[in-house]
């Protein structure tokens, strides 16, 4: 597996891979939070806002490590 990050080019502008990973991470974290809210599972977390932040970080790291560089 190639672990060297690759930049994204749009209209001649290069976007850093971490930026794309963090945007995707945030979107996924938000979707997860909505799903947990929908099924009333968020009540089992001590402090949901912090969990949302943790989800965002976990997704960003996972996407940045396994999805973006490939």
């Amino acid at each position, binding site marked *: 597996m190639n672990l060297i990050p690759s930049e994204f080019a749009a209209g001649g*502008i290069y976007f850093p891979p971490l930026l794309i990973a963090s945007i995707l991470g945030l979107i996924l974290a938000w979707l997860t939070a909505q799903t947990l809210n929908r099924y009333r599972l968020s*009540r089992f*977390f001590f402090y*949901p*806002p912090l969990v949302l932040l943790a989800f965002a970080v976990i997704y960003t790291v996972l996407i940045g490590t396994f999805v973006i560089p490939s």
Partner: protein
Amino acid sequence: MTLSPRFKHAFKTALAVVIAYAIALYMDWDKPIWAGWTAASVSLDATGQSIQKGLNRIAGALVGSLAGFILLAFFIQDRWLFFLFFSLWVAICTYFSFGSERYNYFWQQAGFFAVVVGLDSAFSPANAFAIAIERTQGAGTGLLVYMLVGLLLWPANSRSSLEKTGQQLTASMKALFANSMGRLLGRPDAGSVPGAQLAQLQQRFDNLLDAAELDSWEVNAMRPAWRRCRAQIADLRDALERWQQDFNELQHLDLVKLVPNLPAFGTEIETRLTQIERMFAGDPPTRLPSTIKLESAEQVRKTLTHFDRAALSVSQHRLAHVEAVTRDLFATVSAIRDHEHHHAAAGFRQSAVRPTVDRDRLGQALRVAASAWLAFLVVIYVPAVPGELAALGIIIRIVVADTKFAWIPVQALIRPTFAGILVAFPIYIFLVPALSSYAQLAVLLFAFVFVVDYAFHDPKQMLWRILFLFLFMLLINLTNVQTYSFLHFANTALQWSLLFVLLSLTEYLPISQQPDHVYRRMLGRFFRSCEFLMATRGWGRQHEPSLAARWRKKFHTYEVATLPGKLAAWGRFLPPDALGRTTPAQVQALAMSLQALSFRMQELTEAGVLHQSDLLVRELLADVRRWRVAVQEIFGQVAEKPETTDPAALQSRLDAVLVRLEARIQEAVDRIDAGTVSAEESGNMYRLLGAHRGLSEALVELSKQAAAIDWPRLREARF
């Protein structure tokens, strides 16, 4: 063909933007957007309102620029100290921008311009001065252009709107009074007037008066009288709303026997309000107010229980106040119509200001400071943030503006923002490069502004209108040497994405701004403040409280008076997930019962300062204290868990206390020689007893409304 006000407004705004841009480009200013955006942002329905907003913008620009210079002068060498004081200034401006509707925009601009001078100048003092001057003259040009367009093209004077609103407000208060009187006298229900409608009309009247003072010389010449009129209308509305709360205790009494001239009194007040309505409409009054005083059938009155006498006494006191205010209001409006300046101005007093700390405003100020710091740290520590210092400036400005709509979730901003960016993109990339003269550009500008202003004219669509116009102007970035770069577009889109991430974070940290969290916090604060006020009052005060104790009491009194209004506003934005089986109508019913409780607390505070007979105090002290402590305990319980109080148990407890106190009062009155207690002292005692009972009744009513709320769902943790 008659043009609609909507068409005229959109046309004037578009024309003002085109002219403002033309001047800014002709003068070769660095950022013509300032002139164009000011012309678009100050466009309001009446010229006076626009002038007032524009003047606030200019004054705010001057004060904010000065603050920016001072910060640069002191801390230009140390970015941490600079940012510490800078965020403090922005937080102060945010705090004060919530203070009054009138100066809201001034403080917002004072915060904006400190950002412009401090950050857009990139820490260069020479730049800072040039930028401050240029931005202020850009804003001044935009304002001047809009004023001229507004004055020359379909001029809309605020005076006629002010008089029409005054007429509507009087008519609504008359309807409220007639309805209340009908309920008391057992007439068929003629339909109620919602309190929210009255509050909206009052707010509109206040705003229009500020505007009319600027665009109508007739209103300006009679300014003291108009302000007095405003204060009297507010006083009358307050008295009528408070009076509504007395009805539960009065409904079982035969008021026609107790107060024989009550129907005649009601007719007289309604006639006065009709005459005031006529005068607002421009017609002379057909009759002057007659002198009327509520009569009291003492023999029938003596057959009542002491608590019924107390309720009657409180209500009579309120009606006497309504009579006095309507008489004064009649005189003021009549003076305005006849232009009797000095007569109307006499006796006008500015309402007493109660300076105290508002926790919610502090919370918003803290949120702005936290957002500013987060953005600052991101710009410093994250490499290659698009726009860097300029992005920081834009982010802070948007954060300050966002606090005005604190209850609107950040998600609500995302759709209009990205829709605006997507609409502006093809215009910037494909259309603007094809234009070869200002005439062509003017057609494009005019068409875009006109369409947006026309399409999003409704006040509910204000967010869409503001964001579409601002993003369009920001993205096309018009200058004399026009450049077209996808980078500029991409950077702007990324800056806004970063802004939303920061705003989402500060919606939770340091203080959660989620509507359900805010709602619960405010509810707890309301009851704790009630508890504090109950704990600090009493008949047996031995010594004067300290300055700190007085300040705390003032703070809690302010909380009790203001929180029900805030709760009603936030209650409308509770998410469906937090409501569970609660309906929005039940949330509003709870807000209304909180408002009633707030009025009762205020009534008790007012009655508490009246002079009481020492003999009566001595006789009733122990019982009243016991009652007070019981109410205090209930407040403590509902602050933790509003659903814990059972309405039926509370009602039976209240009834038992009333029976016991009734007997104690009778004993005391029998023991005391009638001559030793003056009529005034006796009246004051009844007012105080009435206030105590009213408060207890309001608590029972509140517990009924609280039982309908799905509290476990509201408390449930969610993202």
